[in-house]
C-alpha cells in the first residue's frame, strides 16, 4: 500500500492511479487539435523576421497562385475587426496587449504578420512560404544592457506593487561582521509543452465554439467575447485535456480571436497548428532576470540584513513582472530587509507565467546567496537554514499557518546521506569524476481562489462532478473524484468528472498551484450539501434507524449512511427520503482572505487568488528541501546528475501518487533549468535562435537517474477546510541553487548565472 493511503476506504489521501490514465495512454483523450470538424480550412501563420519597425509591403501574388489557398489575413483586411485583447493585469484576459494584424506595426520578432487560409495544411504552409513581406526595420533593443530600453520601477509599473521592507537593511549591512554582495542571473526560457499551440474554431448560428488547450476556459470565453464583440454566452471553450501548459496557456494569446475571426469570415471551421518555432514567439515565455543580493549575518550565522534587488525583461507594450521579492524576503528570519524590482522594456514579445514564475528566479538567487554565506561562515548549509528558520514572517510579523522546512531538511538529508559529505571543494573525487553535493530550500505560496462545483448523485449510486477546472497533467480529474468518493462514500469507479469546459460551473485558472485546494474544497462543500439533506431527513423521519440522532454524526461511507454507533442504512434508502430521483449539490466558495466580490468576478473569468503573503492576518507557504549529487568529468567537464532527493511538506496530500509525480517532475524541471534550458537570443536582431527541441535543451531520460521524493506529513487545520496546500510549482524551486552549490563543491568554482555550461568550469578557461 503506497505511503499516505488509507486502506479502509478510497478518498482523500488514497494513492489512486489517474482515472483518465487509460484514455491518455490509449490515445482516446481528445486534445485541442483532435477536434473533428466538418470540412475545416487550415491556417498557417507567417511571422515577422524583424523585431521592431513597420510592414512596408505584403506581396501575396505567389501565395494566391497556390492551389487550395482561400484567403490571406493581414493588417490590411483585419485591422480593428478584431479588438486588441486587454492585458490581464489591467483587468483583461490576454497575455499581451499587442494585437497583430491590427496595424502594420511590428513589436517583436516572430510576431504574426499574416495568416494564410487554405483547404489543406500543406497548401496553407506553401502559401505562407510564398508570401513576401517587406519591412522598414528599426534597430531593436534586445534586453538587458541594450541601448534604447526603458526602465521602470515596480511601483511605476503597477499600483499594487509593493517592495517588502522592514528595519534598516543598509545600516545593518554596513556594521555586520560577515557580509556578501552578490549578483545572479537567469536566462530566457520557454515552456515547450509537447502539445503545440493549436486552435480550432467553428461557428453555428452566431455562436462560437473554440477547441484549444487552456488553463483558463472562463477567461478565454470572456476575453474572446470582448475581442470579437460577442455575448459571452455565445462563446464556448472546450479543453478537457491539455498536453502540457506550465503557464503558457493561462492567458489568451493573440491567435485565438484571429482564428475565430477567420472562421467567421470564410464561413468554415478553421484549424491552426502553429509550428514549434512559432510557439516560441506567439505564446509567452520566462524572461531573463538579474539579481543583486546583499546579505549579512552575525558570526553565529543569524541573518542581520537582506537586500534583494531584481531586474526583469519585458515588452514595450506590457509591464509584465513576476516580483519574486514577495517570497524571497519572507523565507528566513531577518530583522532588516529591503527589496526592489525593476523592469526593462525591450523589443520583445510579452513574457508570461512559467512554472513558479516569481520563485524560480528569485528563490534561486536567495538560495545561492545562502549557500555562499554558509561557506563564508564555515558552516554547514543545512545548519544555516536551521539557525534562520522562523515561526513568524519577517516583514509584517505574521504567523505561518504551518511551516515544516526543517523537517524537510532533516528527512531529505538523512535519505541523501548528507552527514558523510566532506565540505572541502574537490574532496569527493571518484577516479576521473569530481563529485559535488549541494542543497537548497524550496518554497511556494499556498494559494486558493473562489470556485464553484456541481455534484449530482443518481439513485443508481453514481456520481457526476462538474467544474470548469483544468487537467494540466496535475491529476485534477482524479483529485476531484477522490474528494467526491471521500465525502459521498462512493467507489471511484462510479464517479465521473467533467472539467475543462466553459459551460461548466466556473473554476479558477490552473495557475499559482491553486487548483487542488480551490476545487477539492468546493467539491467537498457540494457533496456536503447532499449529505446534509440526507442526514437531516434520516434523523427527523420517525421510521428511520437514525431517528433522533444528531445529523452531524452521520456519514456516507461505502454506499451507505452510517452513524458513529455502528448503525447503517443503504444509501438508496436514505436518498429516497429526500428525492424521487437524483440529488444535486451546487457549491460556491470564497476562501479565507477572498473579497466578497471575488465570486462574481469568477463568473466573468476574472481571477482572485489569495493566500501566500497576500493576507492581512496570516501567511501560508509550502516548503521543501532538495539535495543534488553531480558528477563532473575532470577533463572535459560535462556535468551529470546521478541522484536527487527532495522532501516536501504541503499539508493534506489528496492523491500521493500524482503528488509524487508532480514533485519528481518538478525536480527534473529544476535540474533542467540549471543545466539545460536557455533560449538563445541574437542580440543584434532581438530574436530567438534555438527555437526547436534539438537545440533548446531539456533533459533526456539518460540525464535523469535516481529521483527520490519524500512526503513529510503536515497537518494544517487553518489553511482551508481540507488542509490542502498546492504543490504543482513547489518541486522545481530551489533545485538550480542546489545544483550550483554542488558545482562549487565539486570544483571550487562559484557560478552565479544560469544555465551552467561545461565551458564555465573548464580548466584553463573558468575563473
Amino acid at each position, binding site marked *: 500500500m503506497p505511503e499516505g493511503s488509507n486502506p479502509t476506504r478510497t478518498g482523500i489521501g488514497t494513492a489512486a492511479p489517474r482515472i483518465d490514465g487509460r484514455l491518455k495512454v490509449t490515445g482516446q483523450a481528445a486534445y485541442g487539435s483532435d477536434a473533428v470538424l466538418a470540412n475545416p480550412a487550415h491556417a498557417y501563420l507567417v511571422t515577422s523576421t524583424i523585431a521592431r519597425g513597420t510592414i512596408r509591403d505584403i506581396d501575396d501574388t505567389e501565395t494566391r497562385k497556390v492551389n487550395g489557398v482561400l484567403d490571406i489575413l493581414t493588417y490590411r483586411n483585419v485591422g480593428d475587426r478584431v479588438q486588441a485583447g486587454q492585458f490581464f493585469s489591467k483587468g483583461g484576459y490576454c497575455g499581451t496587449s499587442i494585437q497583430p494584424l491590427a496595424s502594420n506595426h511590428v513589436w517583436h520578432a516572430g510576431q504574426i504578420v499574416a495568416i494564410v487560409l487554405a483547404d489543406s495544411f500543406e497548401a496553407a504552409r*506553401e502559401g505562407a512560404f*510564398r508570401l513576401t513581406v517587406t519591412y522598414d526595420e528599426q534597430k531593436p533593443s534586445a534586453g538587458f544592457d541594450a541601448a534604447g530600453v526603458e526602465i521602470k520601477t515596480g511601483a511605476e509599473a503597477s499600483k499594487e506593487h509593493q517592495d517588502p521592507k522592514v528595519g534598516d537593511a543598509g545600516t545593518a549591512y554596513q556594521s555586520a561582521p560577515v557580509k556578501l554582495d552578490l549578483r545572479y542571473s537567469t536566462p530566457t526560457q520557454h515552456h515547450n509543452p509537447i502539445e503545440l499551440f493549436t486552435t480550432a474554431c467553428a461557428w453555428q448560428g452566431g455562436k462560437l465554439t473554440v477547441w484549444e488547450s487552456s488553463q483558463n476556459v472562463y477567461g478565454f470565453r470572456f476575453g474572446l467575447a470582448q475581442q470579437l464583440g460577442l455575448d459571452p454566452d455565445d462563446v464556448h471553450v472546450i479543453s478537457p485535456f491539455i498536453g502540457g501548459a506550465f503557464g503558457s496557456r493561462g492567458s489568451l494569446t493573440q491567435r485565438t480571436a484571429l482564428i475565430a475571426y477567420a472562421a467567421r469570415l470564410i464561413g468554415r471551421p478553421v484549424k491552426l497548428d502553429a509550428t514549434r518555432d512559432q510557439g516560441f514567439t506567439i505564446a509567452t515565455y520566462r524572461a531573463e532576470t538579474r539579481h543583486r543580493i546583499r546579505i549579512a549575518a552575525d558570526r553565529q550565522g543569524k541573518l542581520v540584513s537582506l537586500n534583494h534587488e531584481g531586474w526583469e525583461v519585458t515588452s514595450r507594450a506590457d509591464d509584465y513582472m513576476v516580483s519574486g521579492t514577495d517570497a524571497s524576503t519572507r523565507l528566513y528570519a531577518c530583522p532588516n530587509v529591503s527589496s526592489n524590482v525593476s523592469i526593462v522594456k525591450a523589443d520583445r514579445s510579452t513574457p508570461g507565467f512559467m512554472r513558479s514564475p516569481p520563485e524560480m528566479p528569485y528563490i534561486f538567487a536567495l538560495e545561492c546567496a545562502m549557500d555562499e554565506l554558509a561557506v563564508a561562515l564555515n558552516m554547514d548549509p543545512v545548519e544555516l537554514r536551521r539557525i534562520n528558520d522562523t515561526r513568524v514572517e519577517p516583514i509584517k510579523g505574521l504567523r505561518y499557518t504551518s511551516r515544516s522546512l526543517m523537517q524537510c531538511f532533516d528527512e531529505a538529508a538523512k535519505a541523501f546521506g548528507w552527514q558523510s559529505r566532506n565540505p572541502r571543494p574537490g574532496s569527493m573525487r571518484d577516479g576521473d569524476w569530481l563529485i559535488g553535493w549541494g542543497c537548497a530550500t524550496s518554497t511556494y505560496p499556498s494559494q486558493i481562489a473562489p470556485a464553484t462545483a456541481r455534484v449530482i448523485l443518481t439513485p443508481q449510486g453514481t456520481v457526476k462532478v462538474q467544474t470548469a477546472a483544468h487537467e494540466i497533467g496535475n491529476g485534477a480529474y482524479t483529485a476531484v473524484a477522490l474528494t467526491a468518493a471521500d465525502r459521498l462514500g462512493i467507489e471511484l469507479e462510479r464517479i465521473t468528472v467533467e472539467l475543462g469546459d466553459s459551460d461548466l460551473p466556473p473554476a479558477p485558472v490552473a495557475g499559482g498551484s491553486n487548483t487542488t485546494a480551490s476545487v477539492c474544497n468546493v467539491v467537498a462543500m457540494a457533496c456536503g450539501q447532499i449529505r446534509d439533506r440526507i442526514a437531516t431527513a434520516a434523523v427527523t423521519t420517525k421510521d428511520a434507524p437514525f431517528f433522533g440522532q444528531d445529523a452531524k454524526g452521520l456519514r456516507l461511507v461505502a454506499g451507505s449512511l452510517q452513524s458513529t454507533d455502528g448503525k447503517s442504512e443503504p444509501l438508496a434508502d436514505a436518498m429516497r427520503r429526500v428525492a424521487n430521483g437524483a440529488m444535486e449539490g451546487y457549491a460556491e466558495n470564497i476562501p479565507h482572505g477572498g473579497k466578497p466580490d471575488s465570486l462574481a468576478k469568477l463568473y466573468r473569468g476574472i481571477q482572485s487568488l489569495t493566500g501566500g503573503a497576500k493576507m492581512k492576518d496570516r501567511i501560508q507557504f509550502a516548503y521543501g528541501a532538495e539535495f543534488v549529487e553531480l558528477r563532473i568529468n575532470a577533463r*572535459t567537464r560535462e556535468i551529470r546528475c546521478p541522484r536527487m532527493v527532495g522532501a516536501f511538506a504541503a499539508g493534506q496530500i489528496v492523491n500521493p501518487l500524482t503528488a509524487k509525480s508532480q514533485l519528481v517532475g518538478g525536480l527534473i524541471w529544476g535540474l533542467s533549468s540549471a543545466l539545460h534550458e536557455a533560449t538563445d537570443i541574437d542580440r543584434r536582431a532581438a530574436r530567438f535562435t534555438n527555437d526547436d527541441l*534539438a*537545440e533548446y535543451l531539456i*533533459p533526456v531520460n*539518460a*540525464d535523469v537517474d535516481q529521483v527520490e521524493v519524500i512526503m513529510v506529513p503536515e497537518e494544517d487545520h487553518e489553511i482551508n477546510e481540507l488542509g490542502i496546500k498546492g504543490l504543482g510549482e513547489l518541486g522545481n524551486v530551489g533545485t538550480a541553487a542546489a545544483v550550483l552549490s554542488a558545482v562549487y563543491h565539486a570544483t571550487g568554482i562559484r557560478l552565479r548565472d544560469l544555465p551552467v555550461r561545461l565551458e564555465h568550469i*573548464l580548466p584553463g578557461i573558468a575563473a
Partner: protein
Amino acid sequence: MRPFLYQRPADRAAAEHAILAENASILGGGTTLLDLMKLDAMRPDVVVDINDLAPGAAGIDASAGGLHLSAFVTMAETAAHPDILRDYPVIAQSLQLAASPQIRNMARLGGNVLQRTRCSYFRDGWTACNKRSPGSGCAALDGVNRKHAVLGTSDSCIATYPGDFAQALVALDALIEITSERGPRNIRFAELHRLPDDTPHLETTLAPGEMITGFFVPAGAWTRRSKYLKIRDRESYEFALASAAVALDLDGTVVRQARIALGGVATKPWRSAEAEAVLVGKPVSEANAHAAAEAAFAGAKARSGNGYKIELGRQTLVRAVIETAALQV
C-alpha cells in the same frame, strides 16, 4: 514544404537516371531532408527515394581486407553489427552516440555523411547565410555561435559539420564508392567534404547526378583499439560540442600508428595528421597526449561564443587518447 516530383526507382540504374534531374535530392531515411523541406530551408524539385535499393544486413561485409558498408544500410543496422562492434568499435560508437533510436532506425549511411549543418542561421530559411544563399553573408560570425566551428572556418562560414560517423571514416581513411550514369568511381572519404572557403554552399565534391553507394574501411592494426568520445551538454540526443575518433596501434605503451579525427569543432570531418605525428613513436602519456592536442588545435580560430571549444577540443582529445590506450583488446 513546396510541391516536388517524387520518384522511387526500383534499381540502381533507374536511380542513377532519376537523380540527373535538375535540383534533385536523394531521400533515404529522410531524417534531415524532410526536416529542412518543412522548414523551407531546402526546396528540391525532384525527390528520389532510394529505399528500394536497401540491402539490409547483406550490406555489411567485414570479411576481406577491411569493412564494406552499403550506403543504404541504416545507422542502427551498422551500429549493432557484431563484426563492427568487435573490430571497428569507433564506427559502432560514432553511430550509437548519434541522434535517437528512432532516427538511427531510419537514417541511412549515405545520407548520414551528407547531413547538413545545424547552424540555426542556415536552418531558419531566411537570415544571411552564404551556405543557403550564396553571397548573402554569414549571420553566425557575430551572432549566436557557441556551437560553431573553430577549425577549417572562413570569413564566409563557420558552420560546424554535425555528424559523428564521418569522423570515424576519415580517421580510418575510408574510401567512398560513388556511382552515376557515367559509371562508378572511388575517392578517399577525406576528399568528399570541402572546406567552406568562400564557397560554403559547395559542401562536397560530388558532381550533380552522383550518388554514394558504399564505403570501404581498410583493415589495420589500429581499428580494434579505437574509440569515439563525444562531449555534449546532455547525455544523449545532442550534437557534439567536441568529439574525437581515435585508433591506436601500440607496441607496449609506445604508439606505432595513430589515427585521429575531430568532430563538433570543425567545418568538415577533420583528420588531424598533426596530432597523429606528435604521438607516433612516443609512449602514451599525459604530456604526449596534451602535446598532440596542442598540435591538433594550433590553427584554431575562435569567434565570440565558441572560444571554449579550443580547450574543450583539446581536453576531449587528451581523454580519448588516454582512454583508447587503456582499452583491453
